[in-house]
């Protein structure tokens, strides 16, 4: 039995060929788009449902069961509900499934109210500082009323402030009842010296985490977008002293977040965000040309490449061929693409079709990669050792070498 487990871990290169056959702007363009298979060969039904809602018409109860389990494992039940509603398919869904989808959607929408409340409190608390407050990610989608917010389960409020106001923002928040979530001195140093955000904060009377960013990527990483460009292009929300990133910047932030954040367990939700944002904004003027140019200006072409590649192949996001061509030189070596495809796809879905240990292993590999992108190698080893010793997360055996 132990040998059987070992044998599975050695099969990645062969199974990965399944991904090469799926056509897209990012391959040779011959075959029809095929539903990507996970490493264990079984189709990720949830991805099919997200990509082609009408396929759900033909689902038997047993398939609905599988989809709901996968959705629950990835925190996307409410999102699935929103997609079913948007596709006008609610009548076609079995009653018990409908009930499950609706109640989850209602609970998530209820939670949105708490996010709005937190945003109002943060805005009022920081009013004396007198600077534009820019919302990021979920809070931005919600307050800007974007389709990406529908059925979206998010728990934190993320804001972007100019780096030179960081100290006064921190002091003001602390004065008004916010606290740092419990962190060791080591973690505090990590955030302040190496990260692009303050350590997470929380108001002592409430339950929503506030992340104050001064950039969208860490300053010690390999990619260093200039935050001033983001601040300059930010768009104010109607009627409120709040802003959100310009559409292209929102898309780029989402793509960067996809592979560079520490929350790899949420990849599917992040991918759905990216897909939703692109579909919403792509009809605006010269969105695509602007996006590629902007990615160049911010130095984030590689994350954009990955983001579009995964979004197109896994969720069918419409990416024009010329965009693929324009980004081709930003692509990593072919072998890396193949491995990333496998790793990313296989960590996307948590649930009965995905082999538990393989997924943990792949997550660990991506975790290593995530830290490598954020921190210089020497710091990385030290940081991972520290995490291992204090038991934050177990690193799978055999992956200590990068």
């Amino acid at each position: 039995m132990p040998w059987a487990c070992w044998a599975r871990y050695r099969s990645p290169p062969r199974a990965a060929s399944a991904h090469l056959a799926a056509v897209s702007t990012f391959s040779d363009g011959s075959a029809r788009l095929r539903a990507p298979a996970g490493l264990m060969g079984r189709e990720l039904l949830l991805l099919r449902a997200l990509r082609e809602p009408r396929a759900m018409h033909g689902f038997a109860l047993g398939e609905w069961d599988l989809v709901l389990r996968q959705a629950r494992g990835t925190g996307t039940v409410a999102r699935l509900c929103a997609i079913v509603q948007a596709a006008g398919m609610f009548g076609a869904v079995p009653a018990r499934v409908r009930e499950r989808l609706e109640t989850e959607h209602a609970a998530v929408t209820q939670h949105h109210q708490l996010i709005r409340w937190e945003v109002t409190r943060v805005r009022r608390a920081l009013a004396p500082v007198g600077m534009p407050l820019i919302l990021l990610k979920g809070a931005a989608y919600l307050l800007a009323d974007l389709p990406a917010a529908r059925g979206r389960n998010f728990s934190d409020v993320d804001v972007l402030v100019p780096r030179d106001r960081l100290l006064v923002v921190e002091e003001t928040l602390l004065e008004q009842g916010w606290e740092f979530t419990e962190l060791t001195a080591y973690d505090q140093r990590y955030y302040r010296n190496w990260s692009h955000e303050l350590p997470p904060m929380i108001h002592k009377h409430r339950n929503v985490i506030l992340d104050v960013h001064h950039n969208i990527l860490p300053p010690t990483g390999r990619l260093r977008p200039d935050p001033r460009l983001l601040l300059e292009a930010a768009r104010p929300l109607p009627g409120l002293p709040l802003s959100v990133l310009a559409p292209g910047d929102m898309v780029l932030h989402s793509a960067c977040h996809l592979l560079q954040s520490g929350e790899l367990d949420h990849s599917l939700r992040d991918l759905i965000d990216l897909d939703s944002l692109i579909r919403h904004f792509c009809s605006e003027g010269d969105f695509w040309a602007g996006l590629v140019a902007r990615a160049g200006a911010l130095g984030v072409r590689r994350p954009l490449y990955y983001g579009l590649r995964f979004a197109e192949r896994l969720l069918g996001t419409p990416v024009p061929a010329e965009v693929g061509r324009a980004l081709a030189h930003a692509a990593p070596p072919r072998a890396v693409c193949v491995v990333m495809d496998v790793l990313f796809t296989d960590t996307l879905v948590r649930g009965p079709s995905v082999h538990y240990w393989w997924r943990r292993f792949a997550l660990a590999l991506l975790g290593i990669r995530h830290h490598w992108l954020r921190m210089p190698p020497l710091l990385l080893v030290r940081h991972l050792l520290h995490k291992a010793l204090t038991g934050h997360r177990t690193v799978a055996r055999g992956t200590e070498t990068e």
Partner: protein
Amino acid sequence: MKLGELAPRDVADRMKGQGLDLDTGPFVVRIETPITDLVDEIRSLYHDFPADAGGGLVDFHVAVRRPAGPFGVRRWLRRQAIAYLDDIRPFEPLPIHMAVPMLESSINWCAANQTNQYVMIHAAVLERRGSALVLPGITGAGKSTLCASLAYRGWRLLSDEFALIQPADGQIAAWPRPISLKNVSIDLIRGWAPDACIGKSVPNTNKGTIAYVRPPSESVRRAVDRAIPAWVVFPTFEKGAAGRLTPLPKARAFFRLADCSFNYQALGIQGFQTLSRMISACNTFEFRYSSLDDALGLLGALPLPSPRS
């Protein structure tokens, strides 16, 4: 077909393979386990519940396995069990003789974390002549013992752990699963209800010794019948105390009820409206008792709430 009517071999095979789907009332639970002792206990405790044909929609998926680790090493070290709820393992592995409490706790965990179609209160619920008695309580208030004693003396059991309140109409759905008993209560109920089928005692859990009582067949048969809440009674076991029902101001009862709820916060306005309607319609009490006979008498004599004008 009821679980008790299936061939034992059949049941064991299904649980070892793709899992056996149990219709427990409001939820279909799929149980997978290769552990033969556990299969036998489940067959006994869930004897009267319909086994689903399978292949349909399942609410909770619970697998109780032997822990295996990536290289299968741990399997040989200790005889342990661990519960998987799809990918989630809410508990650490436990000695294999604790498999039943682990299963029951896992199903409870699923309900507490994965359902929002009901307002869920941590409470025992029983019904008589169409009216439901809700006994909210933190563990240790004796509500399970009280619940078991009432269930075996004329009250219909809806649940010993979860009051499932429907937001639309305020009625309570029944989920008459096995009742958990601890320590001295086990022998107490054995004496109180000699006909009740009580499973194996499981010693050394973090709550002492636990055993489960099979729910009365009639309660299982009537699992589809909802009940209208009439009384909210907060019980406290107090050694030597004479049974006493004290009216509890409704606003305070509301708060204590909300405190015992798993999802009141998450449901927002719907939670508030459901609970306020319920409190308005019920009589609310605190209840001190030490003798089950006392309790039976006093609770059986509770006046119905006057209808709202």
